[in-house]
């Protein structure tokens, strides 16, 4: 099959334009560079010194090892065996279910709970990285009063006496928090505030969806967030809602979205995304249109007008400005939506009431309420109200608030207002902050009450109405912290442990909401065991859809010529900045830009050309509002972005990231990871606007100018580029691309479509690997993969992968065993398409690394693993140079393991590698060994699914299959036999044990999308 390849894949714009330095550099596994070269004399000096030290240290005696058994060992605790406890993730308000792997009394890994109906076994990157927060040595260990160590008794006494004064004077008490899904906590706060004449609870989310809730209040009479059912939707139209990346509940949405794109059942949803910048969701869309933020409302109106006409619904729409989107396409889209009435879904991610109302209207006339949007059992994952926040801020400015409690939010950091807001907060006579670390708000507070990590305390959550879950402690608390419910219960005058509070609340409020179990203890035990219980949802009274308030948006708001529309967005890793303390997440390459350890100003290639800037050039953003501070950020050129948009990530520049001044190896040439201000990145929140009662993320206009300075971004984009050697490219055509894809139309005709067969030639290698037992293999479904990077963190936690810091990443020395290669390509329509290819060691049968190792430190095992023996490795790096997949990582340094508390997170089943040693993925061999030994103990075979690699376990899209290829009935064998399966760089004949399934885009080659209902059956 010699088909002409038209599509080209490229990782960076330089590569697309075939810049010679990039093309040459990509062949290099270890590119040299940097300001200083290692000379021969340096080498000799270092060798001599190393030899001397080796001899000197070799003379010491082996240290005496001690073993301290438990005093009293309960039956289920066996040292060395891991136990899994079901709990609820509190990394964000989505409330995904998790299983905490507890080894010898300490949790070491968080995994998804497959029984959880919302998250369905997935867990995102931030959720998994949360475990590092537990072992953070800079976490608050005791309460603070005026910045000094205090005691709980003293603080309780003082706060209670001050509250008594406030109560007597009828002063205003405000409780400010992010979304709280815990029913017990909410009840406690309610009870607490009820004790004051003038008090209420203000909820806001730094990544606000307030307008979405407000719109439902206007159209349905209840302020709720609907639960979206992506699995039931056949046509999904999203207006800047990054639901696979950062929007509300990405893990649950990804699982549902994937269920709605089932190629085997030939049920594939059609997904259109309108967005100003390239988001994770946009990168998966079948049709993605780059639209300026000011035009989003106009587009919604255009679509509403067309759909209303087709379904015969009333919609007043006088003169409409023409939109930049092809009207033929909009007409087609409206047709499709009408055909999929009740099976479509319109989403709007902008925080704008009018746009949300239009989106509700579209869903209403398409009959989606009750099918793809559920408001009877709504989601409780976002409850913030920007209007109330605005009122509170006004009260703060006026000095009306006498007591303010801040929990789960950091207003001094994530809200606009800067020093003015800080000053207003300082004016509050009693400012109490519940925080795990001294963040920007806690630094202003008189009392800082250390909040327990959610793995240390009892709690609960109700992410979706009727779905209650338990959060249980998995470790003895590490400091003198106290959970919020305990603090409030103390001030309510009934001090009790959190366990009693949660249990009593469940007995009184949750237990009566179900009928299955008649005994509370049994109900509770089951809920604690499963981590989740389904009960009746709270009744909601909606009214008839109110179309009165839906108004067309007639005009687009375009930035003035020469100016840019500013879009502020959250990244998968940092979200609103709550994870700024976490080095794993700073080092996680952004799914799209692949940049680490920084935020930056994303602009389109055209705009970059116009401004005359290249990647890394620092530009100055000037707010037209006349913000006194100028924002200077390095540029990152982003293909697929709208030309008049400049996008900056929120959540950076937090005080919490100041600790990373010393991250990574501190050697002669090291450059520190933090920026000029001593923190990682720049806080973009001052550019946010709180106007018209909502937080606006995309309304500002900025003028952009060059500063002439440079700040090289630590991007992994061009690292580890795969290339097919010239001599192996078939005559007459270019090299076979490393990504293979097809369209739904072609797939339905021939499931094998898009898979390029390679010419079978006689094999020079003897088959010297008989594989008598199992042969481990993996299949990765690239069509399901969303690039969310959950697997990258899963691998990092499981395999004790060190953090190297910004400077080392700049030098191509990142240590992630699993990376996600992101390729761009250009469709005929000019749309930039994205392909994700998770790549790790491919466990080749004819492994090129094995033949070149002079000390046999990497050899093939009888079950198909390409073993890496760290203690045998002498660090010649020959193997990495010979690896076509560039899946090997070299320890250039002894990466820091000085923090004894943080070391508790290390997996005791995996060696911590030292300097000069090569390492790589081994399919989580420690898990394979565990499963084999356990199976043997029971006298059974290793059953299919008994071994789950870390990356596979937590994948929200379930894109990774792993198992025994010698077992024809295993899931992975079946996936290997899938006609979509291909292997990366198959022509090298190294016979990798990892298969990839082609990407199937729901559009036909002619640029006309195929609709799936035509293909049913």
């Amino acid at each position, binding site marked *: 099959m010699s088909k002409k390849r038209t599509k080209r894949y490229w990782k960076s714009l330089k590569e697309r334009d075939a810049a010679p330095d990039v093309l040459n550099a990509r062949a290099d596994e270890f590119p040299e560079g940097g300001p200083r070269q290692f000379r021969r004399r340096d080498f000799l000096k270092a060798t001599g010194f190393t030899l001397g030290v080796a001899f000197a240290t*070799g003379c010491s005696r*082996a240290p*005496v*090892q*001690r*073993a*301290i*058994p*438990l*005093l*009293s*060992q309960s039956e289920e605790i*066996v*040292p*060395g*065996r891991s136990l899994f406890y079901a709990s609820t993730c509190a990394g964000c308000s989505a409330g995904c279910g998790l299983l905490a792997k507890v080894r010898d009394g300490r949790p070491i890994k968080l995994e998804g709970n497959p029984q959880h109906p919302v998250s369905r076994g997935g867990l995102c990157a931030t959720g998994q990285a949360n475990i590092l927060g537990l072992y953070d040595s800079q976490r608050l260990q005791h309460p603070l009063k005026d910045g000094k160590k205090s005691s709980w008794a003293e603080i309780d006494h003082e706060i209670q006496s001050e509250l008594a004064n406030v109560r007597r004077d009828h002063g205003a008490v405000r409780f400010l928090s992010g979304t709280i899904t815990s029913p017990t906590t909410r009840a406690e706060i309610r009870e607490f505030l009820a004790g004051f004449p003038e008090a209420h609870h203000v909820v806001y989310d730094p990544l606000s969806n307030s307008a979405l809730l407000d719109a439902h209040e206007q159209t349905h009479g209840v302020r709720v967030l609907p639960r979206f059912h992506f699995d039931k939707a056949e046509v999904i139209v999203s207006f800047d809602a990054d639901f696979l990346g950062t929007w509300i509940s990405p893990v649950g949405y990804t699982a549902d979205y994937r269920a709605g794109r089932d190629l085997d059942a030939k049920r594939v949803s059609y997904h259109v995304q309108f967005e100003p910048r390239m988001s994770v969701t946009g990168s998966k869309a079948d049709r993605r249109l780059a639209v300026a933020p000011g035009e989003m409302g106009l587009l919604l109106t255009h679509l509403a007008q067309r759909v209303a006409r087709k379904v015969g619904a009333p919609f007043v729409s006088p003169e409409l400005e023409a939109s930049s989107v092809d009207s033929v396409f909009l007409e087609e889209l409206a047709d499709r939506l009408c055909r999929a009435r009740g099976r479509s879904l319109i989403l709007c991610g902008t925080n704008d009431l009018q746009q949300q109302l239009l989106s509700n209207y579209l869903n209403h006339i398409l009959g989606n309420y009750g099918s793809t949007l559920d408001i009877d059992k709504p989601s409780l994952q976002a409850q913030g109200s920007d209007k109330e926040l605005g009122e509170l801020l006004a009260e703060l400015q006026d000095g009306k608030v006498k007591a303010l409690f801040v929990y789960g939010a950091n207003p001094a950091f994530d809200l606009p207002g800067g020093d003015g807001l800080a000053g207003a907060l300082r004016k509050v006579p009693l400012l109490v902050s519940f925080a795990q670390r001294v963040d920007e708000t806690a630094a202003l507070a008189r009392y800082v009450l250390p909040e327990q990590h959610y793995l240390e305390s009892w709690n609960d959550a109700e992410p979706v109405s009727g779905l209650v879950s338990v959060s249980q402690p998995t470790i003895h608390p590490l400091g003198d912290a106290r959970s919020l419910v305990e603090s409030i219960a103390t001030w309510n005058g009934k001090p009790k442990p959190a366990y009693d509070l949660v249990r009593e609340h469940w007995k009184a409020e949750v237990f009566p909401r179900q009928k299955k179990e008649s005994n509370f203890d049994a109900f509770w035990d089951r809920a604690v065991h499963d981590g989740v219980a389904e009960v009746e949802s709270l009744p909601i009274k909606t009214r008839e859809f109110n179309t009165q308030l839906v108004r067309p948006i007639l005009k687009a708001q375009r930035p003035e010529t020469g100016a840019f529309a500013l879009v502020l967005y959250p990244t998968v890793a940092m979200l609103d900045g709550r994870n700024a303390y976490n080095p794993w997440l700073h080092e996680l390459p952004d799914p799209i830009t692949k940049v680490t350890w920084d935020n930056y100003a994303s602009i389109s290639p055209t705009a970059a050309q116009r401004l005359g800037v290249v990647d890394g050039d620092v530009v100055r953003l000037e707010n037209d509002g006349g913000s006194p501070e100028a924002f200077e950020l390095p540029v990152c050129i982003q293909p697929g972005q709208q030309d008049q948009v400049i996008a900056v990530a929120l959540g950076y520049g937090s005080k919490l990231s100041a600790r990373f001044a010393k991250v990574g190896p501190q050697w002669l040439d090291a450059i520190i990871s933090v920026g000029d201000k001593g923190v990682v990145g720049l806080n973009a929140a001052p550019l946010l606007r709180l106007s018209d009662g909502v937080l606006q993320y995309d309304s500002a206009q900025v003028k952009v100018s060059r500063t002439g300075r440079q700040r090289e971004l630590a991007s992994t984009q061009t690292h580890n580029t795969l290339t097919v050697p010239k001599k192996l490219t078939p005559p007459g055509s270019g090299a076979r691309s490393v990504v293979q894809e097809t369209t739904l139309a072609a797939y339905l005709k021939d499931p094998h479509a898009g898979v390029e067969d390679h010419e079978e030639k006689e094999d020079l290698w003897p088959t010297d690997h008989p594989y008598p*037992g199992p042969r481990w293999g993996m299949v990765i479904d690239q069509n399901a993969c969303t690039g969310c990077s959950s697997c990258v963190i899963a691998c990092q936690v499981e395999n004790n992968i060190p953090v190297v810091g910004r400077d080392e990443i700049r030098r191509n020395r990142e240590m992630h065993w699993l990376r996600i290669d992101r390729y761009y390509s250009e469709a005929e329509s000019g749309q930039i398409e994205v392909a994700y290819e998770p790549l790790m060691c491919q466990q080749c049968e004819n492994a090129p690394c094995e033949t070149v190792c002079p000390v046999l430190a990497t*050899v093939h*095992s*009888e*079950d198909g*693993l390409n*073993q890496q*023996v*760290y*203690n*045998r490795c002498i660090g010649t790096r020959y193997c990495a140079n010979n690896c076509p997949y560039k899946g090997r990582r070299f320890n250039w340094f002894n990466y820091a393991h000085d923090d004894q508390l943080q070391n508790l997170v290390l997996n005791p*089943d*995996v*060696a*911590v590698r030292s300097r000069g040693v090569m390492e790589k993925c*081994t399919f989580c*061999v*420690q898990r394979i*060994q565990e499963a084999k*030994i*356990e*199976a*043997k*103990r*029971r*006298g*059974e*075979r290793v059953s299919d699914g008994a071994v789950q690699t870390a990356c596979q376990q937590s994948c929200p899209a379930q894109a990774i299959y792993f198992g025994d290829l010698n077992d024809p009935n295993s899931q992975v064998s079946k996936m290997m036999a899938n006609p979509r399966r291909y292997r990366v760089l198959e022509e090298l004949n190294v016979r990798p044990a990892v298969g990839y399934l082609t990407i199937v885009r729901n559009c036909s080659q002619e640029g006309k999308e195929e609709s799936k209902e035509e293909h049913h059956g």
Partner: protein
Amino acid sequence: MSAPRPKPSGLLQYLGSPFVTLVLVTALAFSLMILVPKFNAYALPGNQLGYEPTQPVAFSHRLHAGELQVQCLYCHSGAEKSRHGGIPAANVCMNCHRFVAAPLGAIHAEDDLAKKEKREPRRVVSPEIQKIYDALALNEKMQPDPAKPTAPITWVKVHNLPDFVYFDHRPHVNAGVACQKCHGPVETMERVRQVEDLSMGWCVNCHRGVDRAGLDGNGNFTSAPAPAAQGPVPVTHRVNASIDCSTCHY
């Protein structure tokens, strides 16, 4: 004519004489005779053969495992179900030592003495067993004493493998490998001593051996859960002592 070289005086005048050479050679031979056997004690790095540290409690395996025939797995129950064989928790000791506080001889001696002195016999507690009670902060009535702090017993690890080796007790114990095969005749030891060098060559040789000749050397390839009497040994019951690197190193 040059002046003759002056003759060395003092002890130096004997240098070069055959007598001195003889003395030196003899001395060298003697010192080698003394040193060479000592070299055996200087083991390779990591080789702890013969290591026999003093333990905080003078616990006697000879008495418990040898004389009293307590099964190894009674105390080291982790060996069956966990990577670590495990040192028993103090509450395991208390299963017996709640009732046994001293050697029988000591109790008889106290009884005799009491009879002689015409008084009630006093409670005899051996000082070593007292250490368990102290660890658990028990009072004389064997009840926890809240006034005393509990303090776990800090044992000294005898069999210690490097950090890059992942040894797992489970497959060995469940395959029926006797504990003594690696730990030596523990039931004869007053204080536990390392009797095998626990080197990689030693491990691999055994793994190779059992794969060729079976666990008992007579072709018995089956591990603990016995298969059906006749027919070939099912794969799940084969010994399969792997010599892949990733069996122990990952």
